[in-house]
């Protein structure tokens, strides 16, 4: 009889362990989902600015898309903080834990991007390509300033 209890006990343990494991993987999946989401948003930012750069370089024509690209960056910039829930770091993420120990600084870098992206939308609407080029550099620096402090160098996992 004792044997049966033992087996049953072990079975319970495995079951409980399995449930616990699936809970943690679920959490890891959630974290990875938000990481993927913000990485995609960041990539869209880069692509949008790249599209504007083409206009500045004369490789593409100025048009409504130029304004749209700037607006995308602006609206994305407002979403950034919500895509960084506390301690959302996965092996695929390059976010630094300092984001949450220095949340104010992180938010401030993001507000700076919002301000500069709003100006980019303005100059994009006005259509002066030279002014667009100048503001594009400022926006690029605002992006870089956050990465410098809050993103890890790329490492092989």
């Amino acid at each position, binding site marked *: 009889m004792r044997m049966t209890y033992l087996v049953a006990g072990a079975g319970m343990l495995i079951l409980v362990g399995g449930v616990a494991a699936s809970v943690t993987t679920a959490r890891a999946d959630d974290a990875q989902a938000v990481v993927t989401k913000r990485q995609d948003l960041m990539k869209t930012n880069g692509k949008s600015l*790249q599209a504007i750069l083409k206009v500045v370089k004369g490789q593409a024509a100025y048009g409504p898309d130029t304004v749209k690209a700037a607006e995308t960056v602006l609206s994305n910039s407002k979403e950034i903080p919500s895509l960084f829930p506390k301690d959302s770091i996965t092996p695929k993420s390059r976010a630094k834990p300092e984001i949450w120990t220095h949340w104010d600084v992180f938010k401030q870098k993001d507000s700076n991007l919002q301000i500069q992206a709003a100006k980019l939308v303005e100059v994009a609407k006005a259509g002066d390509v030279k002014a667009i080029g100048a503001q594009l550099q400022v926006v690029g620096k605002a992006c870089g300033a956050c990465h410098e402090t809050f993103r890890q*160098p790329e*490492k092989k996992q």
Partner: protein
Amino acid sequence: MPRADAAGPAGALLSRGRRGARGAVPAGFLFLFWLLLLWPPGTGWAAAPAAGDTASGPSAIAISRGRYLVEAGGCAACHTDAKDHGQPFAGGRALKTPFGTFYTPNITPDRATGIGGWSDAQFLRALKQGIAPDGSYYYPAFPYPSFTRIRAADALDIKAYLFSLPPVRHENRPHDLRFPFSLRPLLVFWRLLYFHPGDFHPDPARSAAWNRGAYLVIALGHCGECHTPRTFLGGMKPALFLAGTNKGPEGEIVPNLTPDRGTGLGDWGQDDIVTLLKTGMKPDFDNVQGAMTEVIRGGLGQLDDSDLAAIATYLHALPPIRHKVGH
């Protein structure tokens, strides 16, 4: 710049007994024989031309040229302990590697703790041969395998600039290396295999810009020290020069700089490369982090546009190598 790879060589070599280094051993002995015959440290052609050393001292022009070359060489980044607000060039910066931690020495002209007492010949020997005034070998964490290609005149301008700086009294901190990497004399083997001293030889068939770029990349900028993969013995793989590696300093991924489309810089315009070297910004508005930021901040970003364009010219003319790094 913490440079795991650079120190790797020495260490890897020392532990080579296990894997296929058998061929290297006899070769090493042959080389050793040659070395003892021709190249005892401190003599032969190693005793560099003792130009300068004049009583009048270097000119202001030499000093300003030297300052520029120091920027191109990124000397400040390694020789300044920025983390602890150390004085420029006074050393003490930790370079963490798998073999232990190197602490860069003081290269200000302080006589007691820096290099204030050095002659021109001693300075040239350090940069171009990797040999200290006392005849001992430097670890390749000091990128002299690249600096060996620096022109002697340029090296002396660098010295002139360093010697124009205020001397800073700051004791060198001994490296903290694991045994047996702590044994400097063993570097002789590494040098035999991987150190190819010699000058930079311009290619007359190429443009002036290409040659300038080649000099900046190969010698002063020592780009290959990070951007070239290394053998398990830690030597650079010449066939993959600048083709990138997943095992850069502190484990960073170092991209392929050859103009391969897909794995290298094939899709980058010349102006894109210049922008990156100046600001760290990539064409997709992403920017670099880590070691490359230090290289740019440490001086590369201050170079004239014409020099950065020359670097881009040279990189674009490299044979494209298909070599994927990263994910």
